[in-house]
């Protein structure tokens, strides 16, 4: 089966097997010398590709326990976040952390230690995982938690599936009173203003900025900042006063075919950005959580707009001190190349989690995406140098092309991760195209 990540680059012919539960995982693990688990396939690059054996986990998707008092949820790793939302939002519960799409699995969220618009206050998803069951390469299933197999637990959170196959996890959900979000939309005319707005929004539960990646000169980094709060039941508007949770389900529109590669050229991206940044309505508004958290989920298969060749997403995180310089330099370089990014996102993150490969760290993270072109890779190499010069790091769940040196420079605790792997997987059974590329 030909498989790729969400960026549709690279594509690899893989032996893929559907998994329905723990017994299938154990059996398949014993039958091969190399494998990786794959959730919803939403990592952008090559993290969930293994030509010898890729386990398709989406059929292992049972919800096993939910405590209505504490919000504690136990489920199998293949459960989709979208299903969790459909079942639990109407009951007044929300995931403690959500990435920008709901079409991810719980196993994928743990393996990538995903973060969301509340990272500055709430941290990454791993902070809410109380325990997980991991099938390791020698055939055992190990319970991992803060106080049980602690090293393995921390290495698995953000570990890109390389410590074993996550079978089940328990995490805490958060209480919500309505499914609405009070959104504040604030204009920022340049990068400095965007930073100022994000800094002054630290008390907001959610905050994120969309950047016009092609703006230049004194407009460099102009953005729209969105903050958000869950609406309290007492503040419901009159027409929804008795309806804290509307029964509406997401209704995806599809991109029906691959756009020709030319569609997203400099001018159309620029037009998109100008439209978005230039003509937004600013101020307070009330919106459903779906469009607030998952604006792109309403266009199913939006990854096809980049055409057949696919695209790479480039997400970097800088320490706070070097964030402004690093991000300015990246935006300037990208703008000089004239390769517009369809969606460019800036976020101020909070404290880093105690996991050796966890991506988010205190400081700013910037996300850009670029269709695959000859120039793309040379530009990204230039961006790599800027990242390295400013002590930044690249998000493995997005990456499809960096080299081993960037990994070592960006993740100083990589040796600690390697040591845990050596203990639990001495024969390197757990591997992916990503781990082979990076020599992990």
């Amino acid at each position, binding site marked *: 089966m030909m498989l790729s990540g969400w960026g549709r680059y690279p594509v690899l012919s893989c032996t893929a*097997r*559907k998994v*329905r*539960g723990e*017994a299938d995982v154990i059996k398949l693990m014993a039958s091969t010398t190399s494998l990786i688990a794959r959730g919803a396939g939403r990592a952008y690059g090559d993290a969930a590709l293994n030509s010898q054996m890729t386990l398709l986990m989406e*059929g292992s*998707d*049972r*919800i*096993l*326990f*939910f405590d209505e008092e504490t919000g504690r949820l136990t489920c*199998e790793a293949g459960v989709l976040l979208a*299903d969790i939302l459909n*079942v639990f939002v109407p009951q007044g519960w929300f995931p403690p952390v959500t990435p920008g799409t709901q079409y991810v699995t719980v196993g994928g969220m743990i393996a990538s230690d995903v973060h969301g618009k509340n990272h500055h206050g709430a941290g990454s998803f791993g902070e809410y995982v109380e325990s997980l069951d991991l099938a390791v390469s020698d055939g055992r299933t190990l319970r991992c938690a803060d106080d049980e197999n602690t090293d393995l637990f921390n290495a698995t959170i953000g570990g890109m599936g390389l410590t074993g196959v996550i079978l089940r996890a328990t995490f805490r959900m958060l209480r919500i009173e309505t499914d609405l979000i009070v959104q504040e939309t604030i204009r920022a005319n340049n990068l400095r203003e965007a930073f100022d707005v994000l800094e002054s929004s630290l008390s907001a539960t959610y905050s994120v900025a969309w950047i016009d990646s092609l703006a230049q000169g004194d407009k460099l980094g102009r953005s729209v900042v969105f903050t958000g709060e869950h609406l309290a039941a007492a503040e419901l508007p009159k027409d929804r006063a008795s309806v804290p949770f509307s029964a509406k389900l997401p209704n995806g529109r599809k991109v029906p075919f691959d756009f020709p590669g030319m569609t997203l050229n400099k001018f159309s991206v620029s037009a998109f950005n100008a439209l978005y940044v230039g003509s937004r309505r600013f101020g307070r508004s009330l919106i459903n959580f779906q469009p607030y958290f998952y604006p792109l989920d309403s266009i199913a298969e939006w990854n096809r707009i980049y055409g057949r060749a696919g695209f790479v997403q480039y997400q970097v995180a800088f320490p706070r001190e070097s964030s402004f310089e690093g991000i300015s330099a990246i935006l300037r370089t990208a703008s000089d190349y004239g390769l517009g990014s369809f969606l460019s996102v800036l976020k101020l993150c909070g404290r880093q989690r105690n996991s050796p490969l966890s991506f988010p760290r205190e400081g700013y993270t910037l996300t850009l995406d670029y269709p695959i072109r000859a120039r793309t890779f040379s530009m990204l190499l230039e961006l790599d140098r800027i990242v390295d010069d400013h002590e930044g790091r690249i998000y493995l769940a997005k990456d499809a092309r960096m080299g081993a040196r960037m990994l070592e420079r960006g993740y100083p605790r990589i040796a600690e991760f390697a040591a845990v792997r050596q203990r639990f997987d001495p024969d390197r059974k757990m591997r992916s195209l990503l781990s082979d590329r990076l020599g992990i």
Partner: protein
Amino acid sequence: MMIASPVLIVGAASDIGRAIAAEYAKAGASLILAARNVSRLEPDVKDLFYRYKADAQLMELDILDEGQREALLGKLTEVPGTVISVAGVLGDEVAAWSSVAAANHIMQVNYVAPSLLLGALANLMAERPGACIIGISSVAGDRGRKKNYTYGSAKAGFTAFLSGLRNRFGSSGLHVLTVKPGFVATRMTEGMALPPFLTASPQQVASSIISAHRKKKDVLYVLGVWRGIMFIIRAIPERMFKSMDI
């Protein structure tokens, strides 16, 4: 139309069985899941509860075991409102040509055992208003072909059995639905190169079954294209058909 509960699913551990369980749970039905080594479905019972607030109980059943079939009937505390048989096995056609045991297994699982079970259940359910029996048969039963005629003939027998059952209860109201899914992407077909436009997902099969159930349909081709394909295949004169390679 209301779905009559409880819904007994025979072969509940299969991919189609699981999808059907979810679909009926979503519709508010209570479930009885019957399968071999049924304790492996305990996580599914929890899932059906937490997702849909559905009540599901497990019953051990090896459909080939006559004693277990009878025991199942004895264990039912109430007459099922709906019975869905997903039991089936594709088997190895070439092996069945030379092995009586292999051929017999395919015939037993696809025809003899489910027919005997559904026949016994029909006797119990005949008087129950709104009752429905659903059998998953196959388009392969529409005409015997060299590639799968052992399986196909068993499914043909099952289709004829369901048709006869429908005719027998036609005036009394017991609804009998014959389902011909065509290709389905399941464990049974994993690794086979199936053309996407002829292949349904287990979820598609389940949702079209519940809608055909509600509409009181007699025969369901899950993907409409199969009705046309099988019409053409049936229409080919035997004289030509016998030398064709399809």
